[in-house]
Structure formats: C-alpha cells, structure tokens
C-alpha cells in the first residue's frame, strides 16, 4: 500500500526531527535553570557562549515544529522554553552595579530636572500652605489642634511655655526613645511621600492637597514658636534635616502631579502611553525621594540633638540644600559627552 509507506516515512522524518534536537533543548533547559537560580558568574565561558546559540536553536526548532508537527505538547514545551530564554536574554541584561551607577549619575538627576515645573508648583504650594497655616493659628489657636495631629505634635502646642518649647529645640524634650522616634518619623514621612506620589493619578488633586496640608503644618508649628520669640531658633532646628526632607516631599508631590496632569492632558500620545511614560519618570524620582528621606532621617537622628548651635544648624541645612540643588540641576554641566 502506497499510503502506508508514505505515512511511515513522514513518521520517520518527524521522529528524527525531535531526536536530533532533543539534546540541545535539554541542555538549554538545564543551563537556564542554573542561571535563573544563580548569578551568570557560575557559568564557564563556553556555557556563556552556548546560551544564546542554544536559545536560537530552540527558537528555530519552534518555528519548524509549528510548521510541520501536530504534536501540541511538543510545541507547548518549545514555546515555554523559548519564552524563558527570551526573558532571560532580553530581560534586565545589565549588572546591578551598573544599574545603580547609572541611577545616581544620570537617571535620578535627569528625572528631577524633567519634573522642574511640577517641583516649582509643589514648592509654591508648600509656601502658600505655610502662610495659610501661620495665619490660621495666629488668628485662632484652636486651629492648631485641627492642623497638627497630637501624636506628631510631641507636646508642643500654643499653650506651652517658652521653656518647654526651648527644651524641645535643644534637649530633645523628654523623649527617651528619640532615635526610635526618628525612625518612626522616617517611615511616616516616606509613607506621606508615597501617598503624595501614588494619589497623583487622580488628576493630581490629592497630591496638591497633601502638599498644601504639609505646608500648613509647617506654618502652624512656626507660628507657635514665633509667637514666643523662638522663630529663628525653630528655623535652625528644622533646617538641619528639614531642607532635605521638605525638598523630598515636594519632589514626591511633583511626581504625583506629573502623573495626574499627564493622564488628564495626554497630548499627542494615547492616554495609556502618556500615563506609562509619566509613571516611569515619576518612579525614578520617587526612589531618589526615598534616598533623600533616608538622608534626612540620618541627619535628624544624629545631628539634631548633638548639634545645638543655631549657626551650625543653619549651615548644615543650607549646605544640604545647596548640595541637592547642585546635584540635580548643575551636575550635568560637569559631565561631558551625550549626558
């Protein structure tokens, strides 16, 4: 029978297709399992060179199998294997050290520069909020409790005596858990920053409110001290870590606003593409915000209680601010090439 001979020949050639390549697939699978678990360093040079070759051979096997074979289990196996290889080879290819270096040298300052409009709005909102807070508490001190939560006030309120207020500035008040409190403040501030960022997608409105509220708290606190003639001293106490911290929160708000405004006004891009683009710039800036808040927490935990001279406090605060501005906005002038 001619048919029988024909089908047998087909069976033969398809069986040999698989037999000839099976060893390559198995080798590729074994290599992938190893590099997915451990660093590529553990591979020998030959194995590293073999990886892309084996990947291409798996891909071409897949193409052949799709065109000639009807074994769906085999095709599914090759698809899964090729996809794993694809994600490994075309995934995050650069090493962690290089990525961290790129982040600090290029990505972070670039993202912050990109957000300069939103950042100025954010800073302006903080100032407006501070003025409003100051004015509200000055006109009626009951506003103070409404603006600043008692847990954050730390015993400071408009009725406190000058001595109590002064002791908070120079002795760290009565808290024994000071560095613990600083760590708590760091996580609290970071949470505020994340919210200012994440809520931005609701057309930026919540971000604006959070930034305004933050400014408001600042103004209210300031009024309490200024009314007792301690305004200059409070400025020093705040500035040692405050310049870094407030800048960071302003940046977080700016990142949130960027997302919100891009979703509202996507321009030439589709709304999805605009949101994704804004989201990535904002996320890069946000990692930077975390780093800044960590700095602020360190300054607060170490510097604020040990350094009690107003001039030194102002110098450190001003120095940090100058450092950040130089790093974000002037740094690229130093870099040569296409940076």
């Amino acid at each position, binding site marked *: 029978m001619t048919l029988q001979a024909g089908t047998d020949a087909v069976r033969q050639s398809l069986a040999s297709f698989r037999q000839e390549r099976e060893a390559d697939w198995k080798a590729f699978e074994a290599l992938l399992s190893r590099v997915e678990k451990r660093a590529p360093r553990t591979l020998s040079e030959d194995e590293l060179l073999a990886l892309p070759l084996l990947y291409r051979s798996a891909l071409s096997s897949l193409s052949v199998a799709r065109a000639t074979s009807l074994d769906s289990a085999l095709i599914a196996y090759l698809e899964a294997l090729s996809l794993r290889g694809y994600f490994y080879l075309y995934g995050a290819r650069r090493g962690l050290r290089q990525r961290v270096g790129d982040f600090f040298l290029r990505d972070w300052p670039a993202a912050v520069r990109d957000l300069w409009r939103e950042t100025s709005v954010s800073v302006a909102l903080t100032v407006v909020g501070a003025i409003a807070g100051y004015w509200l508490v000055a006109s009626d001190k009951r506003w103070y409790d409404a603006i600043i939560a008692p847990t954050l006030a730390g015993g400071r309120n408009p009725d406190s005596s000058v001595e109590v207020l002064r002791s908070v500035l120079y002795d760290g008040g009565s808290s024994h858990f000071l560095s613990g409190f600083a760590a708590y403040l760091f996580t609290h501030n970071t949470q505020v920053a994340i919210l200012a960022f994440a809520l931005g997608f609701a057309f930026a409105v919540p971000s604006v409110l959070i930034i305004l509220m933050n400014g408001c708290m600042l103004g209210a606190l300031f009024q309490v001290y200024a009314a007792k003639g301690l305004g200059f001293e409070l400025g020093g106490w705040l500035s040692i870590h405050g310049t870094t911290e407030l800048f960071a929160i302003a940046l977080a708000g700016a990142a949130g606003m960027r997302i919100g405004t891009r979703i509202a006004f996507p321009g030439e891009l589709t709304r999805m593409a605009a949101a994704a683009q804004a989201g990535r710039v*904002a996320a890069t800036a946000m990692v930077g915000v975390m780093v800044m808040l960590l700095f602020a927490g360190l300054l607060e935990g170490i510097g604020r209680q040990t350094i009690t001279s107003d001039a030194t406090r102002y110098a450190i605060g001003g120095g940090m601010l100058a450092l950040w501005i130089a790093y974000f906005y002037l740094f690229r002038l130093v870099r040569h090439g296409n940076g």
Partner: protein
Amino acid sequence: MATARNPAELIRPLITPEGVDLRVKLADAGTRASAFLLDVVIIVAAAIAVTLVVIFGLGGLGVKEAEPLFIVWIIFIFLLRNVYFIAFEAGRRAATPGKRIVGVRVASRSGAGLTIDQVIARNLMREIEVFLPLSIIAARGGAGVADTLSTIFGLVWALLFSLFLLFNRDRLRIGDLLAGTWVVETPKLKLVEDLSLRKDPVARRFHFSPAQLDAYGIAELHKLEEVLRRDDYFAMKAVAETIGHKIGAKIEPIDSRTFLTAYYGDLRAHLERKLLLGNRKADKYAR
C-alpha cells in the same frame, strides 16, 4: 468571573528580535489574586516572626538597651511592606515568591527588558490600591473609632482597585497601567513522550484507509492527544466508541487505548503529510 471565558482572549503576540512570535499568555485574575495572597501570607508570617523575636528581646533586655532593637524592628517592617515586592521583581526572575509559585512573572508591555523604574512604579501604586485603605481601617479599628461608614468606604476602595484588572482586556492593575507592564504566564513544562512513537505490537493490527483518516482534522487530533495523555479509562472508551462509529471500525471495549494510540499515530502522520504538501486541514468540517 476570575477567568476569561475564552482562554485565547488572553494571548498576546510577542515578536522576538529573531522574528518569532512567542505568543505570551496573560495571567488571569484568579492566578494573580492567589499569587498576591501567597505574598501577603509570607510578609505577615515574617512580620509576626520578627515581632515575636523583638518582644522577647525587649523582655530580656529592659527598655534602655532595647532601643536599637526597636529601630531595627521599625525599619524591618517598613522594608517588608515597601521593598519586598520591588526587590523580588527587580531580580532576574521578575517575580515575587508568590508569583513564582503560581508560574507568572512581570514583563514590559513593549517587549523590551523590564527596567527597575517600571518595577518601582507598579509597586508604589499598590500602596494606594490595597495597603492604604486596609491600614486606615486597621488603624481606626485599633484606636476604637472605626465606624461602619469608613470601614465600608475602605473596603469598597480596596475592592474597586483590586477588581480594576477585570475591566480591561489586558488585565492591568493601576500600577501596571502607569508602569507599562503586564503579568504573563511562564509555565515550566517538561518535554513529554511523543505519542506517535508508541510501539504497541497489538496496535500494528489496526490499519486505516485514507477515507477513515480523512474523517478528522487538526482540532480533533489535538483533542485526541489530550484524552490519550490524560489516560482516563472511561474518557478513552467513550472517544474510541465515537471514532469507531464514525469511521465504521469495530473495536473491543478492552482495546480502546490501543485503538486510539494507533489511530492517533496514523491520523497525525496523515495530517502532517498533508501539511508538508501545503494543505492544512483545520478540523473535520474542512474539505
């Protein structure tokens, strides 16, 4: 509701630089929910373990010496909540332990490599999607001021954001939307036996005429392959009877597996030969 009615709806093209379409399958909502719950269980278990250690440490050390421990604890809880997802998804597998267990990973929608800013963007958004409303409820409940209205509001908020991925065809969370990512399945499949290579001496008895082999197409062949691989006696018996009836072959009930193996082998060879000649017979209705 958790799964798409038609699984093919979740398949998206992914053209590699070599020009091969890998056809990724997006993870369905149920899979993602179980991955997330696994991660939450891991985080909570770690937090409880660390808290217990800290409590016993505090008891043994006294308040003064416990302060560094307290700081470490605060920072650890903070890291667990914010860094767990980012650190794992920025890694080589682009998946948290929960995602790994259910066999999915995060990928960039553009097909290019997943970058660290994408991972950060999608995970910071989780903060408002789930953690914010839940932690507000928890905080108010802890302070004893949780009223029905705010609890309902918080739950509705969390629910609305968790269900967001059911209302768009690419199964995107808000975080995925902003980061330009999606979650795809990366199953680990074993290479299984080729059914047409089964050498069964009894199966040699069966010979099929071209007319008998023309009765079915590729769709039916794949169904038959599924039945054979499942190896369920009653399913094979039913299928063998149906096929036997259709092609007019008499089979003893005991023989259904052998018969199906023989028919599968011959049908596949027949259809593959047609493939080589450029004739793709999609299913039994195709001429």
